[in-house]
């Protein structure tokens, strides 16, 4: 240590600078994930089913452009849809455009069923509108896909080309479509773009925006808070240097691992900036409070004093975050692991850079008095007196609040809403909800039906069972429509002679209808509904814009009923991007309980090692688990859903808030002289003041995340801050109350 603070200072700073320059350069180039893939859990069964689905039926990431027109079925409206379809089909990256303008129905022809455009070419005026209305009435399945029930909004379905390795064409296509929407949308006409590809694009854009906005904002907030607290330049510059190096090294390592930022890990920079302040703040505070003219000896003494508490605080914080690695969602795992890495980096950098920096400065002539607001002073004194004088009542009140919070816990809904997880003014949310309200369901569940023996579905039994399954789905709440091969079979039957939309009536007709499907000219369209060898069929269910709290049980109910209707000879699998999110959401609670249990176990094991006392470990447990329960109850009462972001709060925060308890118990052990009440008064008014300031920094830093673009991360930031406040309250009331009540005149607690 002495070498580092004397001759080793310059080489150390040079090495630190070089490492930071390299890792900082790497960090500056961290990419942004464009696929949202890391938000999907790595459930092998789910992944395999989705891959099989995409290999058989193609991508489920088509775009949907809704065109609202006051006279949609008149020549003007249909002309607009036709012109837009034609224009969009020429944009780079578009594979195919389907709309009312180019939709076809099957009609009787010379050789049997043959396709004919729904909109007759060459017609104009009232005759056109009449013919289109008739065609839509004649083809309810087509009408459901391409036109709203009130016939004022049309859908243009846009299939995107698959270009592996090209990261830019989708973004360019979406920007182009939005430019067209802006250009065309006037005089009562409006265009609304939605789809999974749009969501992925917009999320990437928002991550980039958050990275640009949140980092400077965090620097500003933390700098201002440090300036207010320390009122000197070194108190601002040294902690900010530690946070800067921590962020650079952590993100540099992130890139070295070949990773890209996602909606969750985009929070890493501001969170790390906050978490990495603690060591610097404690060291600088200790240095200011210390005495002695020898700069090296003074710094050395402070470092030795703070080394163990800061190490254990960093360790517990890191363990809390690292416990997130037990979840199934890669984005959350990465966030936990790299936040933990960042905390350990900040400990190492803080414990070296801050002492070296301080060693260059002349020590203050006298110990600095911490400026304290009279209100804070009075509040701390009241807290100390209340906990010391009435520990039983304090515990009773806090237990009552906890019981109330526990009553709110069952109200917490496990819900991930891909549409509403964006801010209300986000274009994607606006457009998607418009489509949902005016045209069709914004979400899609996909089911794949196959025979267990692998034989084709070209049989009367299969058709009849599929029809029963389809009817059962359509009867369910939140279901807007179903698309399946049955719609095409009905058209074939009508055109082959039945005269109306009915399903094949016998074995031969069923087999023939599938034969015709196999030879249909529009194979890419047929392949979206049935496998090339007819061994599996897709049942696409359009669902209202509901969250996974509704969608997950809906999907499970459909699966259960479907399996009953289809019987043992058939298999039924649910899949698709939306189903996968629903399934992941179902696993969140289990993942959260697992992660939180691990965090609590590791954190309190560490505290046990630190204090070597079961009694103190138990005391530390109570005031830290209480605020987590309170936050859970608050989420229940305020209707905040458990989602990818909010599920991280408990595990992440437990490691942070326990630091206050460690500092409080350390302060108590130093102040204890046989009278627990007196020790509580001294600790709460002394250490409590430092904890208050530290919490202000942490809470304000976490709340910077509230300016992000995603509601889960906004709630994570907001509720983490709230939990830190309530944890401090618990530390100032419950911890001392427990210490007083459990004191049996034993020796003072040992502390490392």
């Amino acid at each position, binding site marked *: 240590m002495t070498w580092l603070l004397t001759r080793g200072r310059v080489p150390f700073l040079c090495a630190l600078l070089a490492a930071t320059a390299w890792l900082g350069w790497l960090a500056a180039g961290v990419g942004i994930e464009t696929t949202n893939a890391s938000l999907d859990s790595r459930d092998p069964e789910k992944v395999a089913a989705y891959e099989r689905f995409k290999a058989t039926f193609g991508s489920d990431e088509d775009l949907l452009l809704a065109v609202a027109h006051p006279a949609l079925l008149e020549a003007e409206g249909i002309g607009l849809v036709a012109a837009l379809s034609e224009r969009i089909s020429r944009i780079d990256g578009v594979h195919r455009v389907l709309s009312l303008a180019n939709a076809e129905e099957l009609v009787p022809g*010379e050789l049997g069923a043959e396709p004919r455009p729904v909109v007759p070419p060459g017609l104009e005026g009232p005759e056109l509108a009449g013919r289109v209305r008739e065609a839509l009435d004649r083809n309810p399945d087509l009408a459901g896909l391409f036109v709203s029930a009130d016939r004022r909004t049309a859908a243009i379905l846009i299939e995107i080309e698959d270009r592996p390795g090209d990261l830019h064409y989708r973004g360019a296509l979406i920007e182009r479509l939005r430019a067209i929407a802006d250009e065309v949308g006037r005089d009562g006409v409006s265009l609304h773009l939605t789809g999974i590809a749009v969501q992925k694009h917009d999320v990437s854009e928002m991550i980039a925006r958050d990275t640009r906005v949140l980092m400077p904002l965090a620097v500003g907030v933390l700098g201002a808070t440090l300036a207010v607290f320390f009122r000197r330049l070194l108190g601002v510059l040294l902690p900010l240097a530690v946070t800067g190096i921590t962020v650079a090294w952590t993100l540099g390592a992130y890139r070295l691992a070949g990773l890209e930022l996602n909606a969750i890990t985009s929070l890493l920079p501001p969170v790390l900036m906050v978490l990495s302040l603690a060591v610097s703040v404690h060291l600088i505070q200790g240095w200011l409070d210390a005495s002695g003219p020898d700069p090296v000896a003074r710094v050395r003494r402070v470092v030795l004093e703070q080394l163990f508490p800061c190490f254990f605080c960093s360790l517990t914080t890191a363990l809390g975050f690292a416990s997130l690695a037990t979840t199934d969602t890669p984005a959350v795992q990465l966030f936990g692991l790299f936040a933990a890495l960042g905390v350990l980096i900040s400990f190492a950098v803080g414990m070296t850079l801050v002492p070296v920096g301080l060693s260059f400065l002349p020590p203050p002539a006298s110990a600095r008095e911490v400026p304290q607001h009279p209100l804070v002073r009075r509040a701390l004194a009241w807290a100390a007196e209340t906990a010391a004088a009435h520990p039983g009542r304090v515990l009773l009140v806090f237990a009552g609040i906890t019981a109330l919070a526990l009553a709110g816990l069952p109200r917490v809904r496990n819900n991930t809403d891909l549409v509403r997880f964006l801010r209300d003014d986000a274009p994607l949310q606006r457009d998607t909800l418009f489509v949902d309200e005016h045209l069709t369901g914004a979400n899609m569940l996909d089911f794949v039906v196959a025979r267990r023996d692998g*034989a084709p579905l*070209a049989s009367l039994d299969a058709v009849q069972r599929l029809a029963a399954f389809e009817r059962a789905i359509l009867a369910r709440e939140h279901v807007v429509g179903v698309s399946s091969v049955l719609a095409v079979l009905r058209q074939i039957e009508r055109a082959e002679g039945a005269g109306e939309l009915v399903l094949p009536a016998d074995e031969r007709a069923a*087999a023939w209808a599938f034969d015709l499907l196999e*030879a249909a*000219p529009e194979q890419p369209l047929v392949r979206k509904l049935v496998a090339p060898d007819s061994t599996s069929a897709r049942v696409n269910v359009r669902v209202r814009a509901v969250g996974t709290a509704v969608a997950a049980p809906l999907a499970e109910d459909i699966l259960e009923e479907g399996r009953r209707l289809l019987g043992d000879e058939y298999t039924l699998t649910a899949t698709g991007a939306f189903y996968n999110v629903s399934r992941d959401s179902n696993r969140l609670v289990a993942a959260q309980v697992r992660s939180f249990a691990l965090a609590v176990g590791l954190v309190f094991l560490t505290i046990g090692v630190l204090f070597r006392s079961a009694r103190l470990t138990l005391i530390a447990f109570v005031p830290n688990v209480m605020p987590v329960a309170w936050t859970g109850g608050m989420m229940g009462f305020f209707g905040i859903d458990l989602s990818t972001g909010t599920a991280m709060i408990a595990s992440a925060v437990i490691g942070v808030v326990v630091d206050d308890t460690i500092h409080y118990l350390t302060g108590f052990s130093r102040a204890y002289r046989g009278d627990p009440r007196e020790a509580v008064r001294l600790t709460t008014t002394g250490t409590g003041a430092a904890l208050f300031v530290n919490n202000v920094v942490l809470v304000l830093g976490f709340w910077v995340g509230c300016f992000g673009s995603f509601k889960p991360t906004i709630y994570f930031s907001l509720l983490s801050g709230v939990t830190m406040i309530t944890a401090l309250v618990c530390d100032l009331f419950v911890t001392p109350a427990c210490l007083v009540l459990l004191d049996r005149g034993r020796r003072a607690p040992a502390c490392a």
Partner: protein
Amino acid sequence: VRLSAIAALVATAGAATAADAPLPARLLARLDPGADEVVGRSFVPSAERRVGEVRLVRRGDANVAQTLLYTKVLSRVVGEIRRKELANWPDGPARADALRYVEALESVRERTWSEVAARGPKGDRRQKVWIEFVVAPREALVAIGSFEMEDRDGEVRVLSREPLVALELSRDYVLRNMRLIAADSFHVEGDALAELLAPLEWLRVR
């Protein structure tokens, strides 16, 4: 119209008889593919949604336009062939040849359909029919039969074939039809068609 209908009935009856009667050895010899040299091949109607393929073949001193159909919708394909035949031969002496051809084809289709139906719902539902337009120094004929095949990575190999019908028709009808089949299947005309047919002595455009 009445004459055409009568001719069609006669042709159907004739074709049915022809399908059941043994083929003359002289014609069977013209149908032996042992020395076939394929000079051109094209999937029909396209590679993406093929129902079969057309091969242009040199077989000794004969030229052959061979169509291999392997499809579950043979009735549609036969209907399409009938439509084209009747359009190509609206009147004249060759119309009777066209009618004999399409009715013979229809009778073979029905026969292969009954074989497919006997296989049950889990069997191979493809109907496999070959059609050959053959022109040789002294013969011009159309033969139709069934075959078995193997399909490896899109490459069809005929394993066995059974001739069911052989019709000796007018040379003009057979030659013109072979050229029409080549143009339609290979989607070529003019010089490109002439280039395609150049290796085939009887078909080349002089």
